């Protein structure tokens, strides 16, 4: 079978995982992370290719994808904004931050992206409570206290 979504680079990485871990199944979640960081969504086609490549039943992979939050949600965007909504961020005003994001990006929180650039997700504690309200864009973490629309726009402009 020819792999369209699993590029050479990803396949090499997966091979390394399979070699490194004692059990082949352990490579599944790590491989999904590779796919997720490249395509930003785990679609059926990705799961089929991974199942074929790892020789693991598709239902096993689908079971994992539907369990873990990072893989389950379909977002349809190149960049993911994760706004923490747990207690420390809640009392420090994450709702205002969320409103600012919605205004600046034109997207609604937790809804499939309209223009494919940003997806705004409200998540549980991201472990950055001293800089509450905290948010992540892709892998980067930012501080949200006293942030202005201008500053936020500047940060957002880095992600095209």
């Amino acid at each position, binding site marked *: 079978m020819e792999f369209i979504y699993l590029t050479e680079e990803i396949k090499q990485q997966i091979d390394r995982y399979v070699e*490194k*871990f*004692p*059990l*082949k*199944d*352990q*490579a*599944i*979640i*790590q491989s*999904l*992370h590779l796919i997720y960081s490249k395509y930003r969504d785990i679609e059926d086609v990705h799961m089929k290719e991974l199942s074929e490549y790892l020789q693991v039943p598709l239902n096993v992979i689908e*079971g*994992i994808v539907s*369990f*873990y*939050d*990072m*893989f389950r949600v379909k977002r349809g965007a190149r960049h993911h904004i*994760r706004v923490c*909504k*747990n*207690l*420390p961020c*809640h*009392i*420090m005003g994450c709702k205002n931050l969320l409103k600012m994001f919605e205004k600046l990006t034109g997207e609604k929180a937790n809804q499939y992206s309209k223009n494919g650039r940003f997806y705004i997700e409200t*998540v*549980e*504690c*991201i*472990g*950055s*409570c*001293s*800089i*509450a309200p905290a948010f*992540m864009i*892709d*892998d*980067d*973490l*930012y*501080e949200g206290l006293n942030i202005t629309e201008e500053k936020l726009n500047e940060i957002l402009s880095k992600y095209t």
Partner: protein
Amino acid sequence: MRYYPNIPDLNVNSSINLLLRRAKENRTVEIEEYITTGGYSALKKALTKFTPEDIVVLVEESTLRGRGGAGFPTGRKWRFALSNPPPRYLICNADESEPGTFKDRIIIERDPHLLIEGMAIAGYALGAELGFIYIRGEYPAGAKILEDAIEDARKKGYLGKNILGTDFSFDILVYRGAGAYICGEETALIESLEGKRGHPRLRPPYPANYGLFGKPTVVNNVETLSNIPIIVTYESYYMNIGSSGYYGPKLFPISGKVNKPGVYEATMDITLRDLIDMAGGIRDGKKFKAVFAGALGVYSERDLDTPMDYSPKGFGGTGTTIVLAEDDCIIDSLIVIAEFFEHESCGKCTPCRVGTYEQLNILRKFQNGTATEEDIKLLEHLGRNIPVGSICGLGYSASNAIMDALKKFRDEFYEHINGNCPAGVCFKND
């Protein structure tokens, strides 16, 4: 130069300089600096001076308890695993996702070699040849930092085959989770580490008997393992750190309405009042209202002089301290916590899956003004029954916050029934 994702300064402070000795600045300590500041000397000492049994005895005598929340004596946990035949596995639980907890990431991101050294010594004591670090998916930078640090340690011969010329071999693999709070529970973590859905296992058998791949396994928190090099270095002097029975340094992640939120290192005899003072007092000169602490116990002004140790009256747990001021509403906060548990329940046990959902719905009634006294009784009923009907820590603690609040802030519930929010947060139309 290595590239890592952006991490802002999370504000770290320490008066005793043990766990956070090298971690005060917002940067990663590389292996050269770690070694020149006395790093890996504990591993050397352990491998040359002590037998594995000596180290287990040292840890037992140190009264070190698990820093991940449950506070189980680490030495005893190791002893259970040691009573079973090898191969044994060591797992470092870096899946901290409890609300308000962000202490482990400081060690991982700023001083990763402390954790690696601790794991190597623990591996030596346990006769394990392979260790895993299960790091949560939301710490992408931490996973990269750890992988690089492990690679550096291998190159210098602190990990891998025949460490420091002895016949002890040990290696560590980093495994990323993918955003499930439940995987911080040790049996769910093991399931997830085996590449499955993270459902907790029924216990017994405990991981010390039947863990990863069915082999004896020890699961320890990042902070617990980072204490091991300190114990080996200080030996019996470790017992001079802190109060009787609860020795050793402890990290306290403080967040919420304080002037300088951050991770503070202290001994466990510190009281809640001192801890809040250390964090600069309440923000904007407001009055203190409550603290949501480890496993989300709720504490009021009356508990300010309680020490933060593992005694029945103490705070114990992860050391998490979320401070609420007078303008925060207890009901509003409880709803956020209830949403968290409703979202993170894995769905294996019905009382937890349905109970957390019902709990949230009842609490919402208080906020929109449709609650009656009957609802308080229902909450108490759920609070008694969710823990006994669940098999893991998530279910056990799902109603902790509500039950504690019903004891300490009961009047707020009645105020809300009468359509009045003392903090002025609820009943606003916006």
